[in-house]
């Protein structure tokens, strides 16, 4: 079970500069827990009170996870996950 996770510039401080890392998990929630074990601190940048942060977009195979179950979205071996902070402001 290997999931490739694409890391945005602003979170690469947690991955020693790596643009992509590998993790595992059967759901997005499990994957984030797994990433936190290898890259401490990263979960807090993705989650707020146990929910996905409003201004962090996560995609599984190009689908915004908000439309496919959020943190409970299912993952399979070989899936590609992309994390992209929202480009937003006031």
């Amino acid at each position, binding site marked *: 079970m290997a999931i490739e996770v694409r890391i*945005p*510039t*602003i979170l690469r401080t947690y991955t020693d500069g790596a643009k992509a890392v590998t993790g595992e998990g059967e759901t997005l929630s499990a994957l984030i827990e797994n990433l936190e074990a290898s890259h401490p601190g990263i979960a807090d940048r993705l989650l707020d009170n146990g929910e996905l942060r409003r*201004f962090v*977009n996560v*995609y599984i195979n*190009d689908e*915004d996870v*908000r439309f496919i179950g959020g943190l409970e979205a299912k993952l399979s071996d070989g899936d590609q996950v*992309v994390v*992209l*902070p*929202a*480009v*937003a*402001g*006031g």
Partner: protein
Amino acid sequence: MLTIDRAIRDAIVAHAKRDHPDEACGIVAGPEGSDTPVRLVEMVNAAGSPTFYEFDSTELLALYKQMWDADEEPVIVYHSHTATEAYPSRTDIGLASEPGAHYVLVSTAEHGNNDGPVEFRSYRIVDGAVTEEEVRVLDPTNTDQNPATPRSND
């Protein structure tokens, strides 16, 4: 300092005027590491608001995939303020997520959709700290490296 071709600068201003009173937003991509804005991409403001902007999440992914495939990065992230000055708001600062980008702010507060000068300013926003920088506009007929004088009228 931000160095930008006049044609791209003028296109950003035109986008801001066209979308007024809603905020306009977009990026200018350039080759990775070049610090040179080349390819203007106007984005839809999914918030459709005079006080907020947000790229649509699906379009955001498509844009980043294009840039990754082309070895580009967002050299400029721009948006307009339609009622206030061209200075990053607290929300802008809190949500800024491209520490390598020039954040360009355009204010259409004075002339709205009409002709007339606009504020066009550029900033670095890193870890909540805002630093304004000089904007150098390059004219196609004037390729020397002298700073261009801002025009009084667009």
